[in-house]
């Protein structure tokens, strides 16, 4: 694998994760628990889609085969997608959405903090812009973790169940392969062991403050780096890609 190929893979990971979690959040549009929270979620969803657009545009450019960001978003199947398994998990109840988002926000908070000093100028510039957005996302989801975890008996139970169900997808966040080795060596990518340390510390702090328990790590799911996904991604893509695949080059 050469540097260009590694960079393309890395950009797909970042961009696909943003796109998929942004799409998941957008599924809440009009269905939020209250009007204000509906708007908050959709703001966050739009931040992710914007970030995905920037990253996939750059990915297409790095690839150099004449594809566009839309080609990458709409014309790849699930095995070609590199988004984290966590990001494709269904919304569930509000506790699941918040738990998924919180675990992901802590991850991107520390990841993009490091990416701000990437030797790839475009990645660094995208990271600087995104990190401000992520800082707000994390603040929002952290407050919800406290309120649902340390809220009523019912909210506590749902929050704990959500964490237990999602926990198996967290090892996937820190999985590294040849792509990482090549790019870390060039000062472009981030050593995820470093992110993992910061992630674990923050997640533990918030979970404990929210009167919740860290789930037992019995099952460890990985596979997003190779395009091995849970069964949920295919359905998501079918919905997201239906129009562009049915009506190629449609404009509106």
């Amino acid at each position, binding site marked *: 694998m050469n540097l260009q190929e590694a960079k393309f893979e890395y950009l797909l990971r970042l961009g696909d994760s943003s796109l998929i979690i942004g799409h998941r959040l957008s599924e809440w549009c009009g269905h939020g628990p*209250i009007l204000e929270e509906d*708007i908050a979620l959709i703001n966050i969803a739009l931040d992710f889609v914007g970030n995905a657009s920037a990253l996939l545009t750059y990915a297409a450019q790095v690839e150099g085969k004449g594809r566009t960001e839309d080609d990458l978003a709409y014309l790849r199947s699930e095995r070609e997608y590199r988004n984290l398994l966590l990001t494709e998990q269904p919304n569930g109840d509000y506790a699941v959405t918040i738990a998924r988002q919180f675990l992901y926000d802590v991850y991107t908070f520390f990841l993009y903090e490091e990416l701000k000093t990437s030797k790839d100028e475009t990645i660094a510039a995208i990271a600087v812009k995104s990190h401000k957005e992520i800082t707000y996302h994390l603040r929002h989801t952290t407050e919800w973790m406290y309120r649902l975890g340390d809220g009523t008996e019912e909210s506590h139970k749902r929050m704990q169940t959500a964490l237990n169900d999602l926990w198996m997808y967290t090892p996937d966040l820190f999985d590294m392969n040849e792509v990482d080795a090549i790019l870390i060596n060039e000062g472009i990518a981030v050593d995820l062991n470093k992110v993992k340390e910061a992630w674990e510390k923050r997640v533990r702090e918030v979970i404990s403050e929210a009167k919740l328990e860290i789930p037992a790590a019995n099952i460890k799911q990985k596979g997003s780096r190779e395009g091995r996904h849970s069964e949920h991604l295919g359905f998501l893509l079918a919905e997201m890609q239906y129009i562009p695949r049915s009506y190629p080059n449609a404009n509106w």
Partner: protein
Amino acid sequence: MSDTQWPLWEVFVQGNPGIPHKHVGSVHAPDAEMAMQNARDVYTRRSEGISIWVVPAAAISASSPEDQGAFFEPANDKPYRHPTFYKIPEGVKYL
């Protein structure tokens, strides 16, 4: 969408440094921090502000419509209270 049981908060946004916070609307929220975040999401999405105040709606005492006569009408025939005889220097904004 059915109404929420969360309390109502009035939202004030400052558009630029040095000018007053202006009432822009209200949000529902369980507490001050969430009210602040909801206000940020609902009222500053298009770069409307640089500072937000949220105030529990219940903490606001308002004059009632019946007070209008006694409160405000006596001022109507006292034009000498208006500083209309001063010249405003050019370039002063937000006055």
